[in-house]
């Protein structure tokens, strides 16, 4: 078990319990002049890697526990093929053994994460990862025990890609509510796209035949799990529709075209950036938000109407977030912490904005995706803050400040973007 002092929180409680008594902001600022911001004045974030987003991905489909339980059972079955604990007599090469054990451990971790996931979709995604990791380990061991070949697994992955092609060509855009349908179909489109486009494992050439087999095992399992989940989501969604539900394809296609035009216009009307003038954190934020908006507008999915609509939601959010940033720059904001409370305030603002945006958006289903992204950004900022156990120079906090501010700007822009997309879909 981890001792209190080994976690940042425990460490800070021990170090700061006396120092904080009666501490006021004035006293903290005087601390700053002595060389940096004390960690006890920074936001009380979880240890690095433990920060959880307050909003996570979801899909308006009633995913049954049984479906998730089947995926979890598959993970257990795969891990059950391993002679755990895997020892030197099983796999003498310690590096190879560590790779297999690490995958098995990650599979178990993802299984636990899935049980604690905030939404059923998150659980589904985590179980997909768990399956891939478990299969990696299982096939690595199958290489030793049963001479498993890479060719067999490559063929399994190709079969998954063929299934994905079939699913794509047979994809009927059923639905009654175009907003709900857009979110569900976009989730399925994206899952299928990955199976079709990611033909090879992302890791590149494996360093050995055994690890090559393991890698392809994981990749084949990810493909298979993606197909299972896509089919399940589609069937489950279809089953939830009334008998007279028709197609939303024309609605999605018209909306996709209109939103693509809208984004094109926004992209063309964005004025050139002024030459660097506002100092580092300001310029960096401005550059990043502009790049984000432009790349989202430029990379609109082609031929996938539901994804185009959902992507447009994120892209419009990015343009509006940039506008908000420019307003704040004009007001003279520097986006650099002068005290611990500046960081705390920025973080609180981000969390509140995300929560409020989910409540204020005309469609929480549509709003969820960009808000889940903003919430992830907050956790990245938390991870950066969590690294500091000693006094920290304000400039070192530029990154977490930027992440909190970006999350806030995006979250506050979500209701407006959502309104625009809903209007288009209902037009």
């Amino acid at each position, binding site marked *: 078990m981890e001792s209190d002092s080994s976690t940042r929180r425990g460490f800070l409680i021990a170090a700061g319990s006396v120092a904080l008594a009666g501490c006021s902001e004035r006293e903290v600022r005087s601390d700053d002049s002595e060389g940096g911001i004390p960690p006890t004045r920074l936001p009380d974030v979880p240890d690095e890697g433990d920060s959880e987003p307050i909003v996570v991905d979801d899909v308006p489909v009633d995913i049954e526990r049984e479906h998730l339980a089947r995926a979890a059972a598959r993970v257990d079955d795969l891990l059950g093929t391993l002679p755990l604990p895997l020892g030197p007599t099983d796999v*003498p090469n*310690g*590096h190879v053994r560590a*790779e297999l054990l690490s995958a098995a451990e990650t599979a178990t971790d993802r299984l636990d994460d899935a049980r604690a996931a905030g939404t059923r979709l998150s659980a589904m995604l985590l179980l997909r990862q768990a399956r891939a990791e478990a299969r990696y380990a299982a096939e690595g061991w199958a290489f030793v025990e049963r001479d498993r070949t890479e060719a067999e697994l490559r063929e399994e992955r190709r079969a998954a890609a063929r299934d994905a092609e079939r699913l794509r060509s047979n994809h009927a855009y059923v639905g009654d509510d175009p907003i709900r349908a857009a979110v569900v179909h976009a989730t399925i489109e994206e899952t299928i796209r990955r199976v079709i486009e990611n033909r090879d494992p992302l*890791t*590149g*050439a494996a*360093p*050995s035949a055994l690890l090559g087999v393991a890698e392809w095992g994981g990749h084949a399992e990810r493909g298979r799990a993606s197909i299972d989940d896509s089919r399940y989501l589609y069937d489950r969604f279809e089953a939830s529709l009334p008998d007279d539900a028709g197609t939303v394809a024309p609605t999605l296609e018209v909306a996709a075209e209109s939103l693509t035009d809208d984004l094109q216009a926004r992209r063309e009307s964005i004025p050139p950036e002024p030459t660097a003038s506002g100092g580092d954190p300001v310029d960096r934020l401005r550059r990043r938000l502009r790049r984000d908006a432009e790349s989202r507008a430029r990379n609109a999915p082609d031929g996938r109407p539901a994804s185009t609509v959902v992507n447009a939601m994120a892209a419009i959010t990015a343009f509006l977030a940039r506008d908000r940033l420019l307003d704040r720059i004009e007001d003279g904001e520097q986006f650099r912490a002068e005290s611990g409370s500046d960081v705390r305030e920025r973080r609180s603002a981000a969390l509140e904005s995300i929560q409020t945006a989910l409540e204020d958006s005309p469609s929480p289903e549509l709003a969820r995706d960009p808000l889940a992204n903003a919430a992830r950004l907050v956790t990245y900022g938390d991870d950066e803050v969590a690294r500091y156990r000693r006094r920290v120079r304000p400039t070192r906090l530029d990154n977490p400040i930027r992440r909190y501010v970006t999350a806030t700007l995006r979250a506050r822009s979500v209701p407006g973007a959502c309104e625009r997309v809903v209007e288009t879909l209902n037009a």
Partner: protein
Amino acid sequence: MVPPTRRRLLRTVAAVATVGLAGCSGLVGEQSGTSRSVSENADSTIPGGTTERDPETLLFRAGTDEPPVRIGEDDETPVRPGRRSSRLSYAVIDTRSRAEQLVASDEVDADAVSAFRSATAFDSETLYLETRRVEECFRLRLCGISWTAKEVRTAYARELRPYNERCSAGESVYESRLIRLPATLDRAEVNSYGSGTDGQGRCHGDGDGRRERENGRRAPENGGAGGDTPDQTPAATRQGVSE
């Protein structure tokens, strides 16, 4: 404790430690990595220099505190424990008398060193001794060596050893190579050394079947990237040595 694995770290990045030694002086020396870069392949080529992709090489590998082969002279900088993981040591051996100072540790076949030294014609050839640390579960494959009158540069590919060869993750060993160059170098003139490693096990222009002799034995023929079959019976003769 299981050390961080490739999968835990960035999966796609082949980390290549490139040691930029330009300007290093000294005839025997060692150098820690001064910069890290990422590249597809480590390339040993020096523009305008001579490059040998398959030099006559004797490889010694040992999990000991000292390099398996070293120059036993006073001015050699000892390899300091604790900082050795990124250490590189190198020496140009341009005379027979200097070659006589080669010291083999107890774990290696000293006769192989003697034979290699004896077979070197120092009026037309030079020996280059280079020692690297490598994780025990990996081995280095020499991709090539390049030289000019003032500079020597080597390139390696780091390969995972077969799964059924016992080794510990996180431990490291020495690999010392005696390389015979078909040229006369003056060690007083050579003032720059470099070495790069491709973390994905590939040599620039890979596809050859080069092999080295390990501890006086030939390294496994199937030991290229992807080899998971254990070493074959060592060959009795050295490859490609001109007597």
